[in-house]
């Protein structure tokens, strides 16, 4: 009497299998050879959002497909279909109308029936998409990153046909000081604001990317070049010129843009990027805040600059610089009261290189900081060999102020040489006061507080704002050589010299006229009431070794004073 037991066993087994099928975390469906549903668990219906009536055994597959809310993905459809009557397992993937992804593993059995397992893989696909997005985008700004941009550029160049394509290389101006002053977190915030403004500048079809740091780029596949790129560049420079709000403070940056255009400037991504980069550099040297197109010849210019920069570094390391000194004479006593230190570069091949040729590059590259440090140290050392009544004047660049090490460099030079601070005069131009007046004034006051004198150089050129003069107790105004050069012929220039001398007297500042070359020029500046003179009439700049003899021997002639002229006073403290 085993039969009932067998049936019971089968029933138990059936119930067990039923339960197993229902407990599977996957959807399960079985179709017979005629593609009619034989078996399905509840999860199957849930995953596909199927109505219960189609889940009854006997429902044709076509009927289920008809009510399935979604489509097979393109990638899945692209798989080759199985041979008819073949046996085996295939994977297929559907995307449902609600956005979910479902993967199906269909196993066809020898009798033509098939078993399918269904899984909701939405989370997996989202994670994968996220990883791909992460790999292609810059996490900070959400813009695409350099490798992706490079690939987009290559593709655009391949598909260009006859069209034109501009690449804008955007580099922020003054980002580093902001980043240093406000910290990296605020710097990052600023970059996000920049990205947002850039998004507002580009048009549909343009590709905007962050290449890294404070560098961005736009790919503009537009006809009508270079005008289209010029217009886009102007939108961008204008947008980034407006101040940014950072921690309640207004921050001004800006950008320089270099543009290269395919096919004119090359047809591969590397050369287009390189040339846009070169053009960006040109925009920087043309004063920033502008855009420049690549032009043939930029490579050459760039190479020459690189060579010059390398030679400057070498000169700095190997003692290639020298100082020459030009005496400054007091018109009242006739004696030499100061000397100005002037930088000379004795190039091994080119001979004497004019400071006008290498100083701008030294400032741009920041090399002026170590060069200026050397000048201060050497000038103070040299001055120790001269009479105590003689000052040494040293020119200091706006870049040295910006860099923030100037005070330390001055103290070092004074301490190492033993020169009293009162014998050192720092010559600054007005640009120092214009760029960052607060920092400049802070430095000047600290120097002045220790007894170092401060002279305003090149007065009368540039802005020559009176408010600049009033903002700090300069000990001296140096009247630019351009005034005295034609003073013999022009009454207006004589009037300016006289006015500045008067201004100096009223403000308690000494006045020195540079570039005095003839006796009549000397007479004019004397009559106009200037206190000191400097120029070829007395001495060209000479090596330090000649200074003691020059200082001892040089005398300015006593000037006849016309009645009514103000007395020639040198207001400098004795």
């Amino acid at each position, binding site marked *: 009497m085993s039969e009932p037991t067998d049936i019971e066993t089968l029933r138990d087994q059936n119930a067990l299998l039923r339960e197993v099928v229902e407990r599977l975390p996957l959807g399960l469906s079985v179709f017979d050879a005629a593609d009619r549903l034989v078996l399905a668990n509840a999860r199957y219906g849930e995953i596909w959002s199927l109505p219960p009536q189609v889940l009854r055994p006997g429902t044709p597959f076509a009927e289920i497909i008809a009510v399935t809310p979604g489509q097979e993905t393109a990638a899945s459809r692209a798989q080759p279909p199985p041979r008819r009557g073949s046996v085996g397992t295939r994977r297929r993937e559907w995307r449902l109308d609600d956005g979910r992804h479902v993967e199906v593993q269909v196993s066809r059995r020898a009798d033509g029936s098939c078993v399918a397992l269904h899984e909701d893989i939405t989370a997996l696909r989202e994670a994968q998409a996220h990883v791909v997005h992460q790999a292609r985008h810059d996490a900070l700004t959400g813009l695409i990153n350099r490798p992706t941009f490079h690939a987009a550029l290559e593709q655009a160049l391949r598909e260009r046909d006859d069209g034109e394509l501009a690449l804008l290389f955007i580099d922020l101006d003054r980002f580093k000081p902001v980043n240093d002053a406000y910290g990296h977190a605020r710097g990052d915030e600023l970059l996000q604001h920049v990205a947002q403004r850039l998004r507002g500048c580009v048009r549909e079809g343009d590709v905007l990317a962050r290449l890294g740091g404070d560098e961005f780029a736009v790919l503009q596949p537009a006809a*009508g*070049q*270079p*005008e289209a790129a*010029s217009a886009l560049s102007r939108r961008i420079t204008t947008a980034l010129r407006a101040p940014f709000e950072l921690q309640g403070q207004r921050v001004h940056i800006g950008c320089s843009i270099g543009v290269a*255009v395919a096919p*004119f400037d090359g047809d591969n991504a590397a050369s287009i990027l390189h040339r846009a980069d070169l053009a960006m550099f*040109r925009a920087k040297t*043309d*004063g920033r805040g*502008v855009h*420049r*197109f*690549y*032009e043939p010849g930029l490579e050459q210019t760039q190479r020459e600059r690189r060579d010059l920069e390398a030679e400057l570094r070498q000169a700095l390391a190997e003692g290639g610089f020298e100082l020459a000194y030009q005496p400054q004479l007091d018109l009242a006593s006739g004696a030499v009261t100061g000397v100005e230190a002037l930088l000379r570069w004795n190039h091994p091949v080119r001979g004497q290189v004019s400071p006008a040729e290498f100083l701008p590059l030294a400032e741009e590259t920041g090399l002026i900081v170590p060069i200026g440090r050397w000048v201060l140290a050497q000038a103070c050392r040299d001055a120790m060999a001269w009479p105590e009544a003689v000052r040494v004047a040293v020119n200091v660049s706006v870049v040295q102020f910006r860099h923030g090490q100037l005070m330390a460099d001055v103290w070092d030079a004074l301490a190492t040489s033993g020169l009293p601070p009162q014998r050192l005069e720092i010559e600054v131009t007005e640009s120092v006061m214009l760029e960052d007046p607060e920092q400049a004034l802070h430095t000047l006051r600290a120097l002045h507080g220790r007894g170092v004198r401060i002279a305003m150089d090149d007065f009368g050129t540039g802005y020559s704002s009176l408010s600049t003069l009033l903002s700090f107790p300069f000990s001296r105004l140096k009247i630019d050589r351009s005034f005295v050069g034609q003073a013999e012929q022009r009454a207006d220039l004589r009037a300016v010299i006289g006015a500045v001398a008067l201004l100096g007297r009223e403000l308690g500042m000494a006045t020195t006229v540079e570039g005095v070359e003839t006796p009549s020029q000397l007479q004019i500046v004397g009559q106009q009431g200037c206190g000191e003179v400097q120029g070829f009439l007395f001495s060209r700049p000479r090596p330090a070794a000649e200074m003691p003899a020059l200082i001892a021997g040089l005398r300015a002639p006593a000037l006849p004073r016309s009645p009514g002229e103000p007395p020639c006073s040198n207001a400098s403290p004795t």
Partner: protein
Amino acid sequence: MFERIAYVSRAAPGVGPREVFDIIRAAHNRNGALGLTGALVVLDGHFLQVLEGEPFRVDACFRRIAADRRHVALELRARRLCEQRLFPGEWMALRQQAQIEPGLLERWGYEAGLPAPRFDADRLEAFVQACCGLAETA
């Protein structure tokens, strides 16, 4: 007070799209800083250019243009002082054959090189403006 010049010239042999691009990008690299504006129309191998700005800058630039080997047979049709620019904000607009609708040429009774008797200073300037999509007063 600005100065404005307008001229017609013929492209030198071998001067094509690349050379035209060179001319315009160089203009865009310099004109912003120099305060020069204007437009260049390239039609049937001829250049029609209007250039305007500070008299000193315009003269210096025109000397360079006159010496440029990329064109020949230069005819200066206009050189005069003016109160206002025709192309404010255009560092050098460029219009070539494909960008100009044929209807416009017909309306203006266009002829290659815009022969002087029919295209005097005013008409040449107005034609260049029209090609750039500015007020058409044919």
